[in-house]
């Protein structure tokens, strides 16, 4: 079931394939079941190697959590998945990120196209200083959405479980909402573009526990349609929401982030293979 839906998605003509000058890759076979995967990925900031040789295969329509101590490259890794790192001056990437059968770091790939299909929600809610309606509609508009915009806005807000709270004040500023509502507005804005993967960079760290809970519930619902990758500092959150967990840590001598262990959340939190993971999970360091 999973496999067929993936195949359908890939066989559809898509923008990335049209942009790509390469013949359609054979890697589709290896893609099966995985939404996106990194191969020997390294990200440098200037001379500093921030994450080193990451090989990570993200399961299709599952929630994958990336955990680890501060500064171990979790966010860097997340941003490598939709080329947001390029906005940082001096950032450089080697290795591959395979999405829809192509390496998104190929010269022929336009990062703008990548970000259309791999959306992102940020740590601090950052709605545009525009109306709630425009916040949701803008992304779809610039991506050439042709259908009924009102319907799309309503659908996106409903999926972000925000519709009932804002349906009477769509023309008010997005900044007039509470922090939790703003974050759900940002999620609605992201899904209005209809991406395939949603990257979330500590989406609940600036919110109170109740708002956090709502975001987590929302993520469960979204996982029925989307692949979600979430970076979090909160281990309970990772345990609660994710299906798979990737544990990152700092390599001692180089201070670069490395992938220590990756597997089903259940296993990582109960019976990790690696001693470092266990120490971190049980709170013995970090």
């Amino acid at each position, binding site marked *: 079931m999973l496999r067929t839906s993936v195949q359908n998605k890939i066989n559809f003509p898509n923008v990335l394939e049209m942009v790509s000058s390469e013949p359609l890759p054979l890697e589709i076979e290896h893609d099966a079941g995985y939404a996106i995967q990194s191969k020997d990925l390294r990200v440098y900031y200037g001379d500093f190697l921030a994450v080193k040789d990451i090989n990570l295969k993200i399961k299709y329509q599952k929630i994958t959590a990336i955990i680890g101590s501060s500064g171990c490259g979790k966010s860097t890794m997340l941003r490598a998945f*939709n080329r*947001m790192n390029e*906005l940082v*001056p*001096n950032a450089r990437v080697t290795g591959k990120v395979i999405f829809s059968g192509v390496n998104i770091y190929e010269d022929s790939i336009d990062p*703008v*196209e990548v*970000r*259309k*299909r791999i*959306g*992102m*929600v*940020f740590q*601090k809610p*950052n*709605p*545009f*200083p*525009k109306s709630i309606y425009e916040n949701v509609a*803008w*992304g779809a508009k*610039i*991506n050439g959405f042709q259908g009924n915009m009102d319907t799309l806005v309503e659908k996106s807000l409903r999926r972000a479980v925000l519709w009932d709270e804002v349906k009477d004040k769509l023309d008010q*500023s997005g*900044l007039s909402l509470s922090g939790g509502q703003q974050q759900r507005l*940002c999620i609605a*804005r*992201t899904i209005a*573009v209809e991406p395939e993967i949603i990257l979330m960079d500590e989406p609940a760290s600036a919110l109170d526990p109740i708002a956090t809970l709502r975001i987590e519930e929302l993520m469960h619902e979204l996982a029925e349609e989307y692949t979600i990758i979430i970076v979090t500092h909160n281990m309970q959150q990772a345990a609660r929401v994710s299906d798979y967990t990737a544990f990152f840590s700092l390599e001692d001598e180089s201070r670069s982030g490395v992938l220590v262990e990756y597997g089903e959340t259940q296993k990582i939190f109960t019976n990790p293979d690696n001693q470092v993971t266990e120490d971190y999970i049980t709170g013995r360091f970090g």
Partner: protein
Amino acid sequence: MWVTIFRGSTAIGIIALLILLVNIANGAFGYAMIEFEVNPEELTEGEIAIEQLDKDALVQVLQDNVSSGLYRRLENDKPFAERDHENVHNLVIEWVVKPQVAYQWTLLDSLLNRSEIQREAEEEFPGLELRFVSWLDTEFITNPQSGDPIKAGVRTAILGSLWTMLIAFLFSFPVGVGAAIYLEEFARKDRWINRVIQTNINNLAGVPSIIYGILGLAIFVRALEVFTSGSIFNPGQLAGNGRTILSAGLTLGLLILPLIIINSQQAIRAVPDSLRQASFGLGATRWQTIWSHVLPSALPGILTGTILAVSRAIGETAPLVVVGASTFITVDPEGPFSKFTTLPIQIYQWTSRPQDVFRSIAAAAIIVLLLLLLGMNTAAVVLRNRFSKRI
């Protein structure tokens, strides 16, 4: 202790400002003795006031009281049949009555020693008219420049100032904002060339204005004369003169360009990065991000900075002296290729005249200039508030 010092500093600033305002008002208003070459009452035999004569009677008065040569010259300039009543009346005042200021008192004197002034006036200037004159009146604003201080106005200077400001704005706003967008959003700050450019822009903002005047003289007045004089658009016309409004506006535009760039850069830099990230995260291009999010958020700051820069330009005198503002010009500027004068030039020229009365109209012109500045700064505040509220 420190608070006292800070209060003292503030007080010094306020006192200096008050002295300035009092000084200007002191010159612009006050009692004056008006002396007539021919008393208007004599012209009409004391029956009615001269303003009430009809046009033909005024023409008759003119013919009776000026030399026939002058009368023919006026007739040649424009036949009396075609002149209106007001125009003929002005000619009578100008050529027959010839009012002159014999003596004047300052505003403070006029207010404090009124009776003494009246006594003095009767003793020393028997038979002359003592009037309280406000040099700043509607006629002062609507009259063109004139050699006669009583008739002189600032209309040509105001129009000249507005024209040069308009051209300076049209030139420097798009260029300045464009440069700011490039430097903030596109240029890589770690490249040495961009750092050199940035440092140079900061330095250019501090270059004395007269140097811009010399630059403007070399480039716009001399090198681009066919263009700035407008002769390129009129083939067949002889080479024109490059000392036009266009040259002055472009020179002032160059002068305020660095200010606009720096102000716009600061406004753009103040736009939070999270906004750009949100936009890029939705698959927006750099230009879509700038156009839809960065510029609207930065616009209030950019507008305020620009208007403040233009306010600086409106008070500039030195570069215009070099570029060649006319000091005496009585016809309104008609377009970018006209000769021109501006308010500061006019003030400068009037204050350098030996007669006291020119200092009074200079004071009145200063008030006009200050009001213009105040108006522009108010516009800046209103614009900023309007654009900030929209969000």
